[in-house]
């Protein structure tokens, strides 16, 4: 008698569940260690406050209109910085990527300036753009410029030569070549550059705010620190972290490969 065997496809969900469980374990572990440290009294008062205190501070923060004012200032500075830095970076990247000659001439500058901590230029920015938002935007823009320029230039060199030939064979104008072939072809590297650029623009703006300012989230953090209000400081950090993660995920979605509209 032949043995009948049923082949059951292994469900995929339990494995995904395992990954999620592992992730949650880590968060739980950190929370437990956090609470244990807070309760132990080993560290100086409030360096590690109980998470309950932090949540309470977070709630207080979120209902404080003054906080939202400062949040708006920083958000505006970051957006302005990204707009300026990314536009300049895109233009520079397109030029350097389109011309092998220009790329060979100038890309070494970009490559060596990119990893330089931009904060060393902050005194110059203060003198050039003033102590207010101008210098913060300048810091963010300077930071965002490099990743966008480098990944755009790299993306341009990766554009499939066959697609360029198609464009030439259909006699596209230079403008059409840029808008119909190059820009769509480099969409993913440019967006990835913008993601990185966004990250460093936030760093640039916040860092500048902590150094010299009278408004913005960086300023609030330094104030909380000066008052030794650690719960409030952690609450601000949580907000910045949450916003950064959300925006990063949003930008990441744009880089996913295209599929059929259903």
């Amino acid at each position, binding site marked *: 008698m032949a043995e009948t065997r049923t082949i059951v496809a292994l469900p995929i969900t339990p494995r995904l569940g395992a990954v999620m469980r592992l992730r949650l374990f880590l968060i739980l572990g950190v929370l437990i260690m956090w609470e244990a440290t807070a309760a132990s009294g080993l560290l100086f008062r409030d360096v590690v406050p109980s998470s309950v205190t932090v949540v309470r501070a977070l709630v207080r923060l979120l209902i404080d209109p003054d906080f939202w004012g400062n949040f708006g200032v920083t958000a505006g500075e970051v957006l302005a910085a990204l707009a300026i830095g990314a536009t300049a970076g895109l233009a520079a990247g397109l030029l350097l990527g389109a011309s092998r000659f220009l790329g060979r001439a100038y890309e070494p500058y970009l490559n060596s300036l990119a990893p330089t901590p931009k904060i060393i230029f902050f005194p110059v920015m203060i003198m050039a753009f003033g102590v207010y938002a101008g210098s913060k935007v300048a810091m963010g823009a300077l930071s965002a410029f490099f990743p966008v320029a480098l990944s755009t230039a790299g993306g341009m060199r990766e554009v499939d030569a066959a697609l360029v030939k198609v464009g030439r064979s*259909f006699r596209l104008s230079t403008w059409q070549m840029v808008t119909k072939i190059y820009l769509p072809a480099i969409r993913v590297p440019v967006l990835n550059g913008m993601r990185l650029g966004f990250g460093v623009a936030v760093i640039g703006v916040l860092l500048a705010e902590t150094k010299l300012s009278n408004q913005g989230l960086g300023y609030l953090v330094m104030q909380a620190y000066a008052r030794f209000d650690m719960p409030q400081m952690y609450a601000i950090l949580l907000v910045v972290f949450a916003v950064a993660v959300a925006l990063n995920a949003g930008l990441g979605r744009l880089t996913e490969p295209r599929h059929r509209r259903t």
Partner: protein
Amino acid sequence: MSDPTVVPWPRPVSAARPESVLTVDDILVRFQTRDASVTAVDRMTFDVRHGEFISVIGPSGCGKSTLFNVIGGLITPTSGLVTVAGEPIRGPHPAIGMVFQEESTFPWRTVLDNVAFPLEVRGVSRRVRLEKARDVVAMVGLTGFEGHYPSELSGGMRQRVSIARTLASEPKILLMDEPFAALDEQTRLLLGDKVLQIQQTLKQTTLLITHSITEAVQLSDRVVVMSYRPGRLKRIVDIDLPHPRTSEIMTSDAFGHYVAEIWGDLRDEASRGMAEAEASRGART
């Protein structure tokens, strides 16, 4: 214009045969490398007649892709002329539609938007170009896939999108460079049938660059045989097989006879190419 030795240079335009839509006239392409100049195409002359299917065949490295780029206007020849209806071309010509060997669909456009592309860049209104694109998509047998992205299609389907895109620009001459090279043999045969069927329906003048003898004989009215480097015109073979034709013609005696005849021409050239490639490989190591 059949015998280039007797016609004085410059040849009068009126000397072109009335039915020829494209002439390749004494094309010479020489590339300058660091320490030598290489002749890729050496004084190629032939004409393409209205409505015919003509193939250019030659061994690997005979300069047939270079010739493709010259006719398409992407490479300027060292000397010689390509003329369309008597008018010498300078750069890509609107009467010539190119299909490339490589994968060349736009991955960010749907099938329909890919096919409508040449009309879009010419400023044809959205409604008209999509309608036209739908017709061409149907012609290459991709109805139902209009909304798909190339990544969702097979290689053979993507190459049909490329062909449809070029057909949508309504070229007088369809110029293809080994469009089936990356496909498996069975797909290649079926696609050949499809292309031939479209060519017959549209009376589309077609110039195919290929290295496949069977493909050339299956599809063509005439086959231009090129020699190994420098690529010279070796012979033009008339393929006198009845139309309508499908890949089934491959079983006929006449087909076998043509294949044997062209292989007879190509054999020496191909083995010369192979020997040279091996020698240069040996010299490098």
